[in-house]
C-alpha cells in the first residue's frame, strides 16, 4: 500500500512537458513586456488626442488672431467660426495619423507578445515616434521654463507643461523598452529556430 502509483496504474497520457529553461523564461518576460507596453502606447494616444483638441479649443481665439495676422486682408470676409472648424479639421487629420501609427505599433507589439504575428515594420515606426516625442519633450521643457520665468504666467500653464513633459518622457521610455523587448524576442526566436534546425 505504501507506494507511489506504479507505471501500470498511471494510464493517463503524459501531458506536454513545459520548457522552463532560463532562455525561455526571458522570452516570456520580454513577450509579456511587449503586451503591456503595446497596450500602454495605444492608451497614451488618448493623451495626445486630449492635449491637442484641448489646446485647439481653449486657445482658439489666439490661433484665429494669429491666422488673421498671417493671412492679412484676404481673410477679412471669413468668419471666426469657419476658421475654427478648418483648424479643428486639420488637427483631427494630424491626430488620426498619430492614432493610426500608435495603433499599428501597439497592436503589432501585442501580436508579437502573444506569439501571433511577427512583423518588423512597427520597430522603425517606433523609432520615428521616439524622435518626434523627443522633439515634443524639448518644446514642452522650453515652454515650462518660459512660464516659470515669466512674471505674468497664466495660472495652471506651468502645471500643464510639467504634466506634458512627464507624460512625454514616460511614453519615450515605454517605446525604448518596447524596442529592447522586441529585439530580445526576435533574438531568442532565431536561436530556437537554429537549435531546431541543428537537431
Amino acid at each position, binding site marked *: *500500500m*505504501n*507506494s*507511489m*502509483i*506504479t507505471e501500470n*496504474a*498511471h*494510464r*493517463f*497520457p503524459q*501531458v*506536454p512537458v*513545459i520548457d*522552463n529553461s532560463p532562455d525561455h*523564461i*526571458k522570452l*516570456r*518576460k520580454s513577450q*509579456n513586456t511587449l*503586451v503591456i507596453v503595446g497596450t500602454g502606447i495605444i492608451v497614451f494616444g488618448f493623451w495626445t488626442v486630449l492635449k491637442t483638441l484641448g489646446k485647439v479649443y481653449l486657445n482658439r481665439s489666439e490661433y484665429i488672431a494669429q491666422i488673421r495676422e498671417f493671412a492679412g486682408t484676404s481673410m477679412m470676409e471669413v468668419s471666426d467660426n469657419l476658421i475654427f472648424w478648418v483648424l479643428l479639421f486639420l488637427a483631427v487629420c494630424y491626430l488620426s495619423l498619430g492614432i493610426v501609427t500608435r495603433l499599428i505599433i501597439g497592436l503589432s507589439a501585442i501580436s508579437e507578445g*502573444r506569439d501571433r504575428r511577427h512583423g518588423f515594420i512597427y520597430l522603425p515606426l517606433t523609432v520615428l515616434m521616439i524622435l518626434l516625442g523627443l522633439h515634443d519633450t524639448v518644446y514642452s521643457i522650453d515652454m515650462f521654463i518660459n512660464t516659470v520665468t515669466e512674471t505674468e504666467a497664466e495660472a495652471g500653464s506651468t502645471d500643464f507643461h510639467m504634466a506634458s513633459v512627464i507624460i512625454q518622457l514616460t511614453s519615450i521610455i515605454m517605446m525604448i523598452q518596447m524596442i529592447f523587448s522586441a529585439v530580445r524576442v526576435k533574438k531568442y526566436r532565431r536561436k530556437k529556430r537554429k537549435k531546431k534546425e541543428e537537431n
Partner: protein
Amino acid sequence: MQLDFHYYATYCAAFIAGYSHEESVIIAHSAQFVDDCSRTFLNRVGGPLSAATTQLQLELMDANTDLVGLQDITRIWASFHFLPGDLYATRKKCSKRYLRKYRLICNVNSDLLIDTVELARGKGLEAAGLAMHVLADTWAHRYFAGTPSLVINNTNYDFYEIIPDGEGFKERNIRFNHNPAAKDDPVNGSYTNSLFQSNENSIMNLGHGRAGHFPDYSFARYRYMPAWGEYREFVKDNPSDYKHAFGQMVYALKCLKTEGQRFQTDCYADEEVLPWIDTIEQILIKRQLDANDDWKAFAASLSGCPVPDYSTDHLQEEYMAADQEYRDHTILGRFIIAALAQKSMITNRIFSSGNLLAGISVDYNKRGFKGIRDYRKLMKEQRREDE
C-alpha cells in the same frame, strides 16, 4: 473541488478503506459540509461563529480587507481549502510582505497535511471527513494561496487548456468572462472568473478566483503562468491529480482506522484502488461540469446501498433539537469541534513560522487564558480527552 468529489468520491474512498456504508455517509457528509459551514449557517443553528469553514459570496462581499479582515479570511481559507505547502519556503530578493504570502501557497504532501490527518485520529468520523476535504483540496487548489493577493493568485491571458486529441494533445486559449450567471462552457472553452482588481488585497484575488471554477473540474488539464512563478509555466493535470487525491484519501482513512499507523505523505493506496481504477479514470476524464451521477452510480455499485443525496437538514435538526450540554455530541457538534481544532492548529503553525497573515495565535492551554467563548468548547473537549 466540488460536491461530486467531496461527497461521493469521499464516500467511495471511505468504503474502499473499510468503513461501513453508514460510517462512509457520515465521513462524506462532513467532507462536503466544509464547503457549507458558513457564518450564516452557524448563526441560523445557533452554533459558534468561529467554527465557520467557508465564506459565502455574500459574506465575502461584506468582508473587510483591512488587516483584521484579511487575517480572518486567511484563517478560514488557509485552514480548510488552501493548506500551505511550505511555511518556511525561501525566495530570493523579495520583501517580507511578499514572502509571507508566498509561504501560504497551497501544495500537496506538506507537513501540515500530516498534522491535519493526525489531528483527526480518534476524534470520530466527522473529523476524518473534515481532514479528507482538506486533503482533497490540496490537489485541486495547488499553486494558489488562501489569502487575497494579486501578486500570488493572479492569472493572465497566458492560460491554455490542454485537450486530448487522438494520441496527443491540442491546446486552446481559455476565454474567461465575468458573467456569474452564465454557465461554464467546456465545449467552447469559455469559463467565468473573478473580475481583475488591481488592489492587492481585493477579494477577487482570493484563492483560484482569477481562474474561476476551472481548477475544480476533474477533466481540466491546463498550463498557465501563475503570478508568483517568475515567468515559469506550470501544468496542472487534474485527472492525474484527482486520482492521486483519491488514492491518498483511501490511504489516509485506512491509517486513521489502524492504531499505530501514522499517516505519511506521498503514499497512495494503489493496490486497494486498482480493481476500480478504470471506472474512476473514466469518471475523471469525462468533460462534464459535475460528475455527481457518475460518482453516485459508482458508490452504489461499490457498497450495494444507495447513497443518500447530500443534505444538511438532518444535521441542523439534530443540533437544534439537542439541549445545550448535548449539542457537542451531535454530528454537527462534533464537526464544529473538529473545525475549531483544525483552524486552531493551522493558525498556530502559521503564526509560529513568523507569519502574521492568519493573525496571532495564543496557546490557551499553556497560558491559562479563558479565551474567546467559542474556543472554550475546544478546550473543554481537549481536557475531557486528557482525563
